């Protein structure tokens, strides 16, 4: 796994952003930036290249599902792997996220191990774009 990957972590709770950032550091990924909702994240994604997007769903402003759809409809960003890290646990929602093109979906509360597994899965070239 390439350790210089650039991550963008989007969550409206600063605690959760910090937790994810720490876990990514433990996994050896030091290049992590943060945004507090889709509205803040989208211009960041458009302004500089990111390799992985990790986003919450339920956020004020622009929710994660809208961010995912915006990313997938932007030709420059369409291929970026997106991992949804959220407390949203309705069956319809997970199916909807999959249809919108999410690469991975982790339910909060989660363990460090599950996050590492799902990340590895979406970063494996064979799984990318699946």
């Amino acid at each position, binding site marked *: 796994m390439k350790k210089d990957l650039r991550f963008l972590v989007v*969550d409206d*709770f*600063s*605690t*959760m952003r*910090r*937790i994810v950032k*720490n*876990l990514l550091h*433990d996994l050896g990924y030091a290049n992590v930036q943060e945004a507090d909702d889709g509205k803040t994240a989208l211009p960041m994604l458009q302004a500089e290249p990111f390799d992985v997007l990790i986003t919450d*769903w*339920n*956020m004020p402003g622009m*929710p*994660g*599902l*809208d961010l995912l759809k915006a990313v997938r409809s932007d030709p420059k960003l369409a291929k970026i792997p997106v991992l949804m890290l*959220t*407390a*949203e*646990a*309705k*069956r*319809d*929602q*997970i*199916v*909807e*996220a*999959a*249809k919108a*093109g*999410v690469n*991975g*979906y*982790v*339910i*909060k*509360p*989660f*363990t*460090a191990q*599950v996050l590492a597994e799902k990340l590895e899965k979406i970063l494996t070239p064979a799984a990318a774009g*699946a």
Partner: protein
Amino acid sequence: MSAAPVPTTLQQRWGEVCLALSLALEAGDEERFLAAVDELTGMRERGLWDSLRQLDARLRAALDQFRLDPRLLRLAGKDIPDARARLDHVLRLTDEAAHRTLDLVESSTPLVARTAASAAALAGECREARDSGAASPYWADLLVRLEGHFAAAHTDGEQVKANLVEVLMAQSYQDLSGQIIRRVIELVAQLEDELARLVQDSAGAAPGYRHAAHADEDTRRGLGPAIPGVSVSTVDGQQDVDALLAMGVAMKG
């Protein structure tokens, strides 16, 4: 022996006008017939209006009582805003506590990592020194004990590092409980709005209720963490999530 039949309420009320109606019809007197019809419809409408007036009076009385209930005024003016402030405070407190814990985790992890790494290196050096055979029996014995100590310090340090990751993960309760509290705050704010409007509205003017957002819109914005006994149709663990995700990807085609 049979007494004259007692006229029913129906007969008492409508008998006279019906008789006038049928007599006018038999006599072919259109003027009298129409007058009787007018009388009949007038009687019917009077009943309806009486009922409406009674209903209106009851509604006004209920609204007046509602408006003037000091408990309601207190609720709308003080208790509900108080409840919101309290919940905001809870949110702030848990946020501060979680960040304080994260500060300590972040500052402790490198310390224990450094100690564990140097302990592992020193355990190796002790083993080499002992294996070289150059040490006197006293030193050889001391090296054995030192190696044991450093090896244990390394293992313990690794365990503390793993525990710190668990402490880190445990702080995610702040996000989950925070999301739930935010939704309750929103609900309380809506309740406050409606109550304030109800209190302000003059009796008789019905308050316009704001309808809850459509379920689809809720789904799009996100529903927040699942609450046992409240949420329906939620997934059962990460395996369930993975299966649904695969299903959704397949549907995407």
